[in-house]
């Protein structure tokens, strides 16, 4: 047993070495332009449709047990009539130094070779530790097997996406960056003996966004849409080093990451909203 754990730790160390990512082909990331985002919520429903997220009902919603993998947060500044409402879509940031990954006692959540923070439902025993450690509050717990509670009452179950598991009671779940779409694109690319093209993988939320606020792609590719929007240098790897703020290295004056001081190195890059009377720091 001890030998096994040592081996595991050894492997974990190797894969956490600086520069390990250079050995991998992709580094999936998302850019969210808050100046385009209107807060309409189309992405939330699109995510629910794609990922078989059950509807939990009024009672469970009231207990804070909604299962939506992403949400729109709203912040209200000021008093009437000088009110400003700001929106921000929040999903799993697939942090490079994800606090949830070190927390899980059964390795149900780990970092895969594409820079994704992955959740293995079969391993999860529901200790809730990851959700407690997550600074972005994006992990959702299945308190029930909602399928048995009538969340997919026939014929609503005909809609369930066959590419995504329907989760059961006791399992933690969260945004996967629509990994089923990534896998499909990678398979296709492999068959054709090429790399996945920029824009070939589009997660459900990105696809549905009416105002085109969301962009998804590969940060390893300096010519990808996300790399350009994020304004990263050709070798963006030190984005993953500790303490480096995006504002210091990005060419885009609007780029930042959520709660950067926590040093979780999230791979979701937000572009600041342009707004009168508000500045980067010092509001409520």
């Amino acid at each position: 047993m001890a030998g096994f754990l040592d081996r595991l730790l050894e492997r974990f160390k190797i894969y956490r070495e600086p520069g390990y990512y250079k050995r991998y082909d992709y580094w999936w990331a998302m850019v969210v332009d808050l100046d385009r985002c209107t807060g309409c919520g189309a992405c939330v429903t699109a995510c629910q449709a794609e990922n078989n997220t059950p509807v939990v009902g009024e009672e469970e919603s009231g207990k804070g047990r909604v299962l939506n993998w992403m949400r729109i947060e709203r912040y209200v500044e000021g008093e009437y009539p000088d009110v400003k409402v700001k929106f921000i879509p929040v999903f799993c940031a697939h942090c490079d130094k994800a606090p949830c990954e070190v927390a899980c006692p059964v390795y149900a959540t780990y970092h895969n070779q594409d820079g994704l923070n992955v959740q293995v439902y079969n391993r999860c025993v529901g200790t809730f530790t990851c959700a407690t450690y997550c600074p972005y509050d994006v992990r959702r717990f299945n308190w029930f097997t909602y399928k048995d509670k009538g969340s997919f009452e026939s014929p609503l179950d005909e809609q369930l996406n066959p590419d995504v598991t329907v989760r059961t009671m006791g399992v933690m779940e969260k945004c996967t960056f629509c990994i089923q779409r990534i896998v499909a694109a990678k398979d296709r690319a492999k068959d054709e003996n090429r790399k996945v093209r920029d824009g070939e993988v589009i997660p459900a939320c990105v696809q549905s966004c009416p105002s085109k606020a969301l962009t998804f792609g590969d940060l390893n590719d300096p010519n990808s849409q996300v790399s350009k929007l994020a304004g990263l240098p050709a070798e963006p790897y030190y984005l993953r080093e500790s303490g480096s703020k995006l504002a210091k290295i990005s060419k885009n004056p609007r780029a930042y990451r959520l709660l950067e001081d926590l040093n979780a190195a999230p791979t979701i890059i937000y572009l600041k909203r342009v707004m009168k009377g508000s500045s980067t720091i010092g509001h409520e």
Partner: protein
Amino acid sequence: MLNRRDFLRVVGIGSAGAAAGFALAELNAPNPARLIPYLIPPEDIIPGVANWYASVCRQCGAGCGIVVKVMEGRAKKIEGNPIHPISKGGLCARGQAGLQVLYNPGRIKNPLRRIGERGKGEFQEITWEEGLTILSKNLKELRDRGEGDGLYLLTSPISGHLKLLLKNFMNAYGSSKYFAYELINYENLRFANNITFGQNSLPHYDIENTNLLLSFGADFLTTWISPVNYSYAYGHMRQGRPGLRGKVIQVEPRLSLTGANADEWVAVKPGTEGLLALAIAYEIVEGGYYKGEDRGKWLAALERFTPRDVAKVTEVAEERIIGIAREFSKTKPSLAIGGENVSSYENGVSNLVAINILNYLAGNNIGISGGIIPNRDIEKSSFIPVNSLMQDASKGKIKTLILYDTNPVFTTPGAVKVEGQLKNIPLIVSLSSFMDETTLLSDLILPTHTYLEDWGDNFTEPSVGYPVATIMQPAVNPVFNTKSVGDIFIHLARNLAGVFQKEIPWTDFGAYLQASWKMVYNKHKDMKEIRETTFEEFWNNLLSKGGWWKEESQAGKKVYISVNKITPYLPKGPASFDGDDKDYPFYLTLYPHSSYMDGRGANLPWLQELPDAMTSVVWGTWIEMNPERATTMGIKEGDVIEVESPFGKIYAPVCLYAGQRPDTISIPIGQGHKFYGKYAEGRGANPLDLLPFKVDERTGAVSHNSTKVKITKTNSPGRLVKMAGWTKELGRDIVQTITPEEFQVKEG
């Protein structure tokens, strides 16, 4: 659980559905050979690999192009059609939830005949043959008695060849009573546009290319006209043009989602928006920004509306009015739009005319990129004011009423008392997919396909500056024993024989649609844009692309607006309200909710659980109230209050919302269904119950913002389920911002 036989059955039928896009013959064939599907695998189905069918969304009237992902005959996902000029690949939450319309447990599964008393909800399942025979027998008798004009057909506003078919049917039958009704309609806007621009249609508002958008209560990012297209345009206007970022000013008493995204919010007093527009117009003319020869005349017409006087009425500071007027004139191109909120006062048309003329005075923003691009003329809409329909009902003029896709019992003001009036109609036939309030009152229910199972097409109004036609094709085979609404009328025509056979000779609606498009093709095939040499090729391309459109330059003609012609239509003063100020101190603003619209989305669980954009409330009705005002009245968030107008009262919990004028409360429309499936029934309250029977006299459109109310705190149990916690950032710098100045400098 599916047993093996059921599984085979579903898969078998599905394979026919998948092929339907390309082979019309498959449509009506529940082919027994297909019950063993993968023994001889269908050519276009590979298990686990999706087929995508292009179609059109019918969740609102915008006509977004969609693609439906179908795997093994089941619809799995709806996405925006990336090449479609309206949706541009995007889709709103309502569009996404279309799958739950198709697979809703509350759908009517078989034709039904009423057996108990009307309204008791006692029905008996019958066959289609029986159902159609009952109806055709009734129609035959009616016509034989010479009362053909007693057949009324009431639908939602539909376009395309279905509308044409229904019209042909009614003409052949000898009835002129084909009407459309919807609560959230644009009749006032069409009327105002006819007065100002001489075109009785909705123009293309080129938000995409404008530099200053002045919006009077137009919540164009959630519900107004074409939200997905306008959202795309909004994103492009903000960040799609390097070095150029358009500005938005929103004028409305309640801060809507669009208002929250605007740069400035003008919290105008309800009912005075039109006057504010006139004051801005006055300043534009007076300040010399309007260069026309008739400047003097305009000044005379507007002299009553100086910013100084109007400031007192509207509660918007004089300097601010002048500032907006100057900015609006100096910024080119600029665009002023008037939305649902201002058109829903009793003087809605006048408000919209006043807003329209701003576009003319500030340098003729009409017909230019970034302004208003008038549409081609469309045929007159068949909108019926609900009062004239009710008059006809009470006089006994309506002998047989056929309803399709419309729910007037729910979507009309409480004071109209539609339910009572419908009692005078001998036969009510509802062609509906769901048991809604109106369908429950009918005698015969013929369940229809949803839009994912049906053929059809859509000619988009207002379009995007050039004509767009979108084809609707069945993505899946019917889930229940339902029929296409087109097929129902074709079947009726066959039963009635005679003149109908000549007018409507087709076997089914799909064939009719194809035949109609063949005529279109033959007429236009010499156009250089049509490269297909045969109709078959053209039709296949039409289905795979999702429709037909021709991108054209958006330049249009300039218009001239004569002062004398326009003056009678301008608002004379603030809108009038029912309920005096003393007894009823609050203005009531009702708005179509972004998820439920006029109530039709309330039966979709995804939409019920989608947190409201501004308040994050789910699964219910709430009343938005200014926090300070609520505190002075001793009302806390979550308290259930009684809202009383001179016409009715409702109960709902309060949600404190800072984007609300202290003298106004707002309630979303859409909840409070008595019957509409288990997800909608008995949930929340219907605020339309508070409304008087009041319409804009010029068009008959319901004025749902013309009432005042009083509120009382009660101890009634009620629940406000809110998803968001604290709405303050507490120094965490979550939504970071930069000022427009910083942005300009840094973007350089």
